[in-house]
C-alpha cells in the first residue's frame, strides 16, 4: 500500500513555530538559520508513517505540541531538522511552504475554523474551488451544495461566519476542506465545541471519507473515545517524541506511563 505521509526525525523549536511570514521572501526562512545551540525544542525526533487511506489519532495532554506538529505537516511551521515525505515525495526545506504542501492535496481544518470573515458560508466553501477553477460554475455549485448537505449547514448558506456558533463554524470549515477532495486531511480538534449529536454525526462522515474517498486522515484530539469509535490507531506525543501507533484496546490495557495517566478514567468506567 502506498504511503501518504512519512516523517523522519522531526525537530521543531519555538522559533520555528511561527513559520515564515508571507511578507518575507520564500527563501528567507531557509537562510535565516542563525541557530542557537541548546535552543528549547517543542518536538525533538518525531517519526511517523501513515499509509494511504489510513486514519490516525494523535492524543496527549494539551501543551505537548500536537497542533504544532499539524502546523509543521501543513507547512505553516518550519522544522529545524528532519524530513517530511508527502505521498512518497520529499519536499526540501527551502521549498517547504504551505502553498507547496497544499499543491499535494493536503487539507487542514483549523481549531477555530479560520473562515474568511467577509465572505458568506457559501462563498467560503467556494473560494478555493473557484480559485483553482475546479470545474464549471454549475459543477462548483453542485459541489458546494453537497458539502453543505454533508455537514448540514445548508440552512445558513447565506450567513456570515460571525453569525454562526463556534460549532457551526467548525462544520463549515470541515465542509470547506472536504470540498477540495483532499488526499490527506489534517484535523485539529474536530470534535471540540461540538455537541454530542453533531459529534456523533461527524464520526460517520470521517468514516465515509476514509472508505469512499480513500482519504488519509490525521486527527488531533483530546477525545480518546473517538479512536475507539473510528476503529483507528492512536499515538501520543510523549516526551517530545511520537510513540508507536497502536489501537485503542492496546493503550487501554498497556502498562506504561501514558496509559496510566490518560486512560485511568476510561478504565475505571469500563
Amino acid at each position, binding site marked *: 500500500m502506498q504511503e501518504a505521509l512519512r516523517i523522519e526525525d522531526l525537530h521543531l523549536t519555538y522559533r520555528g513555530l511561527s513559520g515564515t511570514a508571507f511578507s518575507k521572501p520564500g527563501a528567507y526562512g531557509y537562510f535565516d538559520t542563525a541557530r542557537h545551540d541548546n535552543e528549547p525544542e517543542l518536538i525533538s525526533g518525531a517519526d511517523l508513517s501513515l499509509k494511504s487511506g489510513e486514519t490516525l489519532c494523535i492524543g496527549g495532554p494539551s501543551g505537548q505540541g500536537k497542533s504544532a506538529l499539524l502546523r509543521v505537516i501543513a507547512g505553516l511551521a518550519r522544522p529545524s531538522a528532519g524530513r517530511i515525505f508527502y505521498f512518497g515525495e520529499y519536499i526540501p526545506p527551502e521549498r517547504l511552504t504551505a502553498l507547496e504542501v497544499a499543491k499535494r492535496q493536503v487539507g487542514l481544518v483549523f481549531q477555530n475554523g*479560520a473562515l474568511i*470573515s467577509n465572505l458568506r458560508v457559501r462563498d467560503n466553501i467556494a*473560494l478555493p474551488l473557484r480559485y483553482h477553477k475546479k470545474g464549471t460554475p454549475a459543477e462548483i455549485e453542485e459541489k458546494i451544495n453537497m458539502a453543505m448537505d454533508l455537514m448540514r449547514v445548508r440552512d445558513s448558506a447565506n450567513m456570515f461566519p460571525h453569525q454562526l456558533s463556534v460549532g457551526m463554524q467548525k462544520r463549515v470549515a470541515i465542509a470547506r476542506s472536504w470540498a477540495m477532495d483532499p488526499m490527506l486531511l489534517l484535523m485539529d480538534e474536530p470534535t471540540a465545541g461540538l455537541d454530542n449529536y453533531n459529534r456523533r454525526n461527524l464520526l460517520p462522515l470521517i468514516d465515509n471519507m476514509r472508505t469512499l474517498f480513500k482519504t488519509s486522515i490525521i486527527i488531533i484530539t483530546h477525545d480518546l473515545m473517538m479512536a475507539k469509535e473510528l476503529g483507528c490507531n492512536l499515538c501520543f506525543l510523549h516526551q517530545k517524541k511520537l510513540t508507536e501507533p497502536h489501537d485503542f484496546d492496546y493503550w487501554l490495557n498497556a502498562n506504561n506511563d501514558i496509559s496510566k495517566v490518560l486512560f485511568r478514567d476510561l478504565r475505571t468506567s469500563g
Partner: protein
Amino acid sequence: METTDNKVAAKMTLVGRLFHHLGLFFMTRTIGQQVCLFCRAIASLFSKTRSFKTDSRNIILQTFFTGVEIFPILFVVATLFGAVVIVEVMTLMGKMGFDDVVGNLMVVVIIRELGPILTAFLIAGRSGSSLTTYVGSMVINSEVDALATMGVDPIRYLVMPGLIGGSIATLVMTIFFSASAIGAGFVVTKLAIFLTGNALNLQLTWHYLSTEILGAISMTDFVLIVVKPLIFGCIITTNACYQALDIAHDVRQVPKATSRSVIKSFLYIVCADVVLSLFYFFDYFNELSRII
C-alpha cells in the same frame, strides 16, 4: 554545528558567493523584502490560477474602495489648497513684478510637487491604514494561514488587487486633485474676490490663468503626472500589505503596524519624490547649458 548558510556558500565560486551574500543582505533588510513583495505581487498576476473575471472584479472593488470614498475629502482639500496657492502666487508675484512666472509656479506647486504628494498622503492615511488593518486582522485570525493551506496564495488574493487597484486609484485621484485645485480653486478665488470687493486688487481671469498654466506645462510634466502617482500608489499599498503580513500572531501589533504603515509610507513617498525630481534637475541643466 555548521549552518546552512556556510554549507551553501562553500560550494560556490567567488563571484557566486559575492552575489549570494549580496542577496542575503538585501533579503534581510525591510526595503529588500518590500521590493520582493512587490515583485511577487506583480508576478502573481501571471500565475497559473489567474482568472480575468475574478481579478478584474477584485481590482475594481479595490479601486473604488481606495478612490471613490476618499473623493469628497480630497475635493475639498484640493479646492481650498488651489485657492490659497492662486491667491498667494498672484499677490506675491504681482507685487514683486514677476507676473510672467505665475504659470510656472502654479505648475510646479500644484501639478508637479504638492498635488501628487498630498493625494498620496491622503490615500496613505485612509486606504493604506485600512488595508493594513484589514490584512492584519486576517493574519491574527489565522485566515491568511487558512488561505495558504487551501492553496490560495495570500499575495495573489490579498496583496495584488490592493496593489493594482491602489495604483490606479492614486493616478485617477491625482489627476482629479490637480484639476479641482486649478478649476474649483479658481472658482473659489473668484468668489473670494467678489465677496471682499477685490480688496487684494487681483486681475484674475480664467483666460489668463489657463494660458499661463498651459504655457508652462512641459512634456516631462505629462510623463511624470502618470509615473509619479503610480509609483506612490505602489509604495503605499506594498508598504501597507508588508506591514500587515509581517505581524506575528499578536493583536497588539495591529495598531503598531498601522501607524508604521502610514508613517513609513510618508517617508518613502517623500524619498521617491526626491529621486523623481532628479528628472527635472536634468531638464534644468539642459536648459542652463543651452542658455550658456
